[in-house]
């Protein structure tokens, strides 16, 4: 019979209240998890587009999006593979600002975020509005590294991190839910870490 598993002494006895169930603190590291080849995107050609059920589809260039009001996030992120990174920071622009510019149709209920790589992920509008989501290009004061989605990624920190599409290229407004890359491959449709919504059916 094995010795029972124990909490390692190096890890604090008090579980950090910022950790959702089943998550552990990865400390200062920032693991990389991606299903596809890391793309090399040139900011000179980079664009971000909002289309679908909007009055006016809008496309921003790199310089144009940088000129929008800056917004920062300070807090925690949670990956479905069970690491969390606590007390980190990102800067960019609030998705509220982007959606306002395009004027979302009242019939829209969901967005699909899509990436320059073809990655997609779906979100109800309520999860990307009201100061809950950003397009970010800075991490802890530095330009966002390419392996973490640079030049810019979506940031939806209250959901598992696969919703925060790396190398984001746009948001499409829809009047229905359209499951994205991981959501059609066994992962949960919404991905709330506090409810441990890791896999379909959780």
């Amino acid at each position: 019979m094995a010795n029972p598993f124990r909490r390692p002494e190096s890890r604090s006895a008090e579980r950090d209240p910022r950790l959702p169930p089943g998550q552990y603190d990865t400390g200062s590291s920032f693991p990389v998890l991606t299903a596809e080849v890391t793309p090399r995107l040139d900011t000179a050609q980079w664009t971000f587009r909002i289309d679908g059920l909007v009055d006016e589809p809008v496309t921003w260039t790199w310089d144009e999006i940088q000129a929008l009001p800056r917004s920062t996030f300070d807090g925690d992120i949670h990956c479905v593979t069970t690491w969390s990174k606590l007390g980190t920071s990102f800067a960019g622009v609030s998705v509220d600002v982007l959606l306002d510019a395009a004027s979302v149709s009242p019939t829209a209920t969901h967005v699909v975020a899509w990436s320059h790589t073809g990655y997609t992920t779906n979100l109800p509008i309520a999860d990307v509005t009201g100061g809950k989501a950003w397009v970010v290009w800075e991490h802890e004061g530095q330009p966002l590294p390419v392996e973490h989605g640079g030049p810019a990624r979506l940031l939806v920190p209250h959901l598992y991190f696969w919703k925060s599409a790396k190398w984001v290229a746009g948001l499409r407004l829809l009047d229905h839910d359209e499951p994205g890359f991981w959501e059609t491959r066994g992962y949960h449709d919404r991905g709330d870490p506090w409810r441990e919504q890791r896999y379909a059916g959780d």
Partner: protein
Amino acid sequence: MTEASLPPLPQIGPVTRRPPVGGPPRTWQTGTVVEIRDETPRMKTFRLSLAEGAVHVPGQHLMVRLTAPDGYTAQRSYSIASAPGEGSEVELMVERLVDGEVSGYLHDELRVGDSLEVRGPFGGWFVWNGRSPALLVGGGSGVVPLMSMLRHHRAAGITQPMRLVVSVRSPEDLPFADEYAEETTLIFTRRTPDGWARPAGRLDAATLEPLLIDGATAYVCGSTGFAEHASQLLVSLGAPVGSVRVERYGPTS
């Protein structure tokens, strides 16, 4: 603006595996250790007998959960190394990391007859269903899901071309050492066996280029550093970006 007039969004690849309708029966179940084999000084294979079984596709992983007497838990993902179709038994192959909470426990404490909790299988992208040629590129413990593919290829007598590239530091670090045949190219990055033709060094274009297979899906797995290097090499050699599937195990490189 109507949806019909919108340009289609780009796509990475078709859905190759959907979860069962109505949600998968993926509750936690007990896995009892029926065999432990040393692969290398830092790697062990654990053969588990699952109470309810689990039908996997090569490339998928299980979630393993350890629970302390005080209720504290830790869960990690481990790829399945065995081929599908071995009844209710599966094999995991775990590398012991320095101060690794879960890998350390599995290596130091777990014995035959002990049990742990597992859930899965999971993963619907880094999977090979046997219907396309496959180029498998693994670094260190990243060879685990690729071994499931190779074992399946052999056990099921699949005729699709398959090649495997395994990169490790030195001969002592090579898991599954007696299972490689002519489909496999071994890369030693620090030290080679005596009389080895290729000098020690990381995987390079000259080594990889002749191994490319037309129309193949490439599966790259390993540490972040290895996966990044190998996947960029494949693309630089002309492999279509959409044909390269990557699984990254974590922060170490």
